[in-house]
């Protein structure tokens, strides 16, 4: 709710800005699968390490049409996040500035819906920095992979909670996991799972 109000306000303030088209209703059929690797799971503390994204058209994951950005190392690159992502400061030494990265992301996704696994987290982190740099939140429609999965699976799943862990979903869908813990790899894996759910036969899935 709060997000909707903010978005409405942003749309008004950006009406004549360079990013006005982001606020228009999307008419196409593409979806962008997006994933961020960050330094913290707490949005207020998180810095972005890398961003990966691919477009999806129909049954096709357009890995030829992708975004694979490493950012300049933030001051707070801690040992803990290194453990999760296996990204070390030296891997990011060649990275680009935050503002450039955000511009590329906006350019790439346009007003397409954004798909991800726990995508709201990624959107909130992006929004935090977008507001800081450009004065608005990411306005795009969000598609949550685990919801898509849950909606299909729940009909076969009587009682109890559906296990929505990333690796569980991947293995239930019998999808290969491509380069876990790289932003682009996760974005592609999520994209494949999404295509599988949207395009494939769900009758052979079990809870």
């Amino acid at each position, binding site marked *: 709710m709060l997000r909707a109000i903010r978005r409405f306000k942003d749309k008004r303030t950006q009406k004549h800005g360079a990013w006005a088209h982001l606020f228009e209703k999307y008419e196409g059929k593409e979806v962008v699968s997006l994933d961020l690797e960050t330094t913290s799971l707490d949005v207020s503390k998180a810095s972005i390490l890398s961003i990966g994204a691919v477009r999806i058209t129909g049954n*096709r*994951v357009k890995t*030829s049409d992708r975004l694979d950005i490493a950012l300049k190392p933030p001051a707070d690159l801690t040992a803990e996040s290194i453990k999760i992502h296996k990204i070390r400061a030296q891997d990011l030494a060649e990275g680009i500035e935050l503002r450039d990265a955000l511009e590329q992301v906006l350019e790439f996704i346009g007003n397409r819906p954004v798909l991800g696994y726990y995508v709201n987290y990624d959107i909130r982190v992006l929004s935090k920095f977008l507001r800081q740099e450009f004065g608005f939140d990411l306005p795009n429609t969000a598609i949550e992979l685990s919801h898509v999965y849950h909606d299909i699976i729940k009909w076969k799943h009587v009682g109890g909670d559906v296990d929505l862990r990333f690796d569980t979903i991947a293995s239930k869908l*019998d999808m290969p996991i491509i*380069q876990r813990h790289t932003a682009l790899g996760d974005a*592609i894996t999520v994209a*494949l799972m999404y295509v*599988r759910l949207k395009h494939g*036969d769900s009758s052979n899935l079990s809870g």
Partner: protein
Amino acid sequence: MPDSFKMSNLPFSLLNEREQKLLRSNLDLGYYQKGEAILQAPELSEGVYVVYKGRVAEVDPDAEDGIEHVFMHYENEDYFGGWSAIHGTTIHNFVAEEETICHILPTAALLELMATNADFADYFQQNLSAKSQIAAQQGEGQDMAEFMLATISDATLRDPLIVNEGTSIAEATALMRETKSDCVLARKGSRVGMVTGTDLLDAVVLEGKALETDVAEIAKYRLVTTHPEDYLFNVLVLMTQQQIERVVVMDGTTLIGIVQLTDVLSYFSSHSHVIGLRLERASTVEDLRQAAKGINALIKALISTGVRIRFTMDLLAAMNGRIISKLFDLVVPDDLQPHVCLIVMGSEGRGEQIMKTDQDNAIIFRNALMWPDMEKVMQEFSAKLISFGFPPCPGNIMVSNSYWVNSVDDWTQKLQDWSLSNDGEDQMNLAIAVDAKPVAGNVALFKVARNWFLRNLHNNDIFFSHFARAAIEFDTPLTFFGNIKDKGELDIKKGGIFPIVHGVRTLALEHRILKTNTYERLELLQEMGVLGEQESEDLCEALGLFIHIRLRQQLRRADESGSGIDPTPNIIELGVLNKMDRDLLRDALQVVKGFKKSLTSRYHLSS
């Protein structure tokens, strides 16, 4: 694209770094559910598809009777759609047999890669002989042994004996004796020259030089050199061309050693000349048996040394022929030898038997020959051959069986009868017999019968049509790749070797070609314009591949069996093949399929 695409598989491994980058940046992933058509004729193809997960069947869109005709299965990094991408539209349907994910390389990128990389382009032209050559150049490890020839560094390099300027002929000779060298290298300033034992003799005896003469004066400074990575085979050629026996091996400017002709020869033939010598010298059956027993070891040595399969076949055919004719000489009394002729038939007659799988032989004797002991002697002959390790023929096509011991007249009559019969066994007997080659006794007896038979076979269309039919009888198993897990093996004799051998045999017979070897027949058929150059080359490659893959598995099974005999000589276990072998095998079977099709139309065999 991250690491999901395997660049190490042919033909992608042919690309250089820049090209691989281009490829990666152009790949998409496509998802297809079970039963979904990935490509449908006559759709425009988007590019090349590489299976990441799942299985795809290539099917005939015009299949009648509602039964889908599956040409081929693709899975596990196999690629398809290359032909369609290059030609624009697809003529077959490609259907996901299970849930499938493919990498897709768009046509534009494919064409760009083909334009910059000739090998890659050749590979996509779907031409078997080009493919196996490229695969050969890529050669890796033992698997490629056939194509790789051994290099100099594998063979015995001799340490050179080097002396400085000012060393006398007498001193040099003493040194050579001491180090058991038969040549010496003499330094003169920055140059190095060679002096051989013969040079020393010539200098002293013929030219009357004093023993104090400096060897540097008589040395020859135009050394023939090579580098350590050069093929031994090239060295042999070099020695033959230059008529020399020693080549100096240099790594850049460093002298590494000397290769001698005797070393090269013994390395190549491994024990072959030893066995050959023993065969020639054998004066008793027991000597011969001992020599014959060494042949399996020789085959292994040849294969692991990297001698080409055709050379191996030729050498073994020659050796087996010598064993058989030697035994014949020892068993058949001298005074009777001019009156009988021993022939070998089937794969032995064609010179294509590597592992001894069976013996097919027969006797042709002069009309009205009186030889009461013949049957007994022939029994003995067969029994001895069996004891040498030539397994008995399951069809009993051996001289111990009187059916295969005939006078010239009876033999020609048999050939004639078989050729007029519709009976399957008669047809098979004829097929075996037309590959006959005389190995001992009086060759003229064999020729008389053969020539008579060929004359009378003139333009008999019905015969050829009937004879050819066997070549298309067995199904060529192109769809087996989908079943690797279930079945995992195929009979390569039925599926690949026999159709080629028999088809070529039929063509050769029709065109009165006297050669019995399939390769030689193919070469002649090509010269006569009966087969196209490409078709003939592809058939040669396909046959060589089948025989080579089969041989590797035969050797392994023979080793494992304990008895030294492979219980299933014609089975290829698909599970142990690597990706490249499977690719080549599939292409080779495709060649067989095409050949069967052309036989079908040539001899009106529509089934």
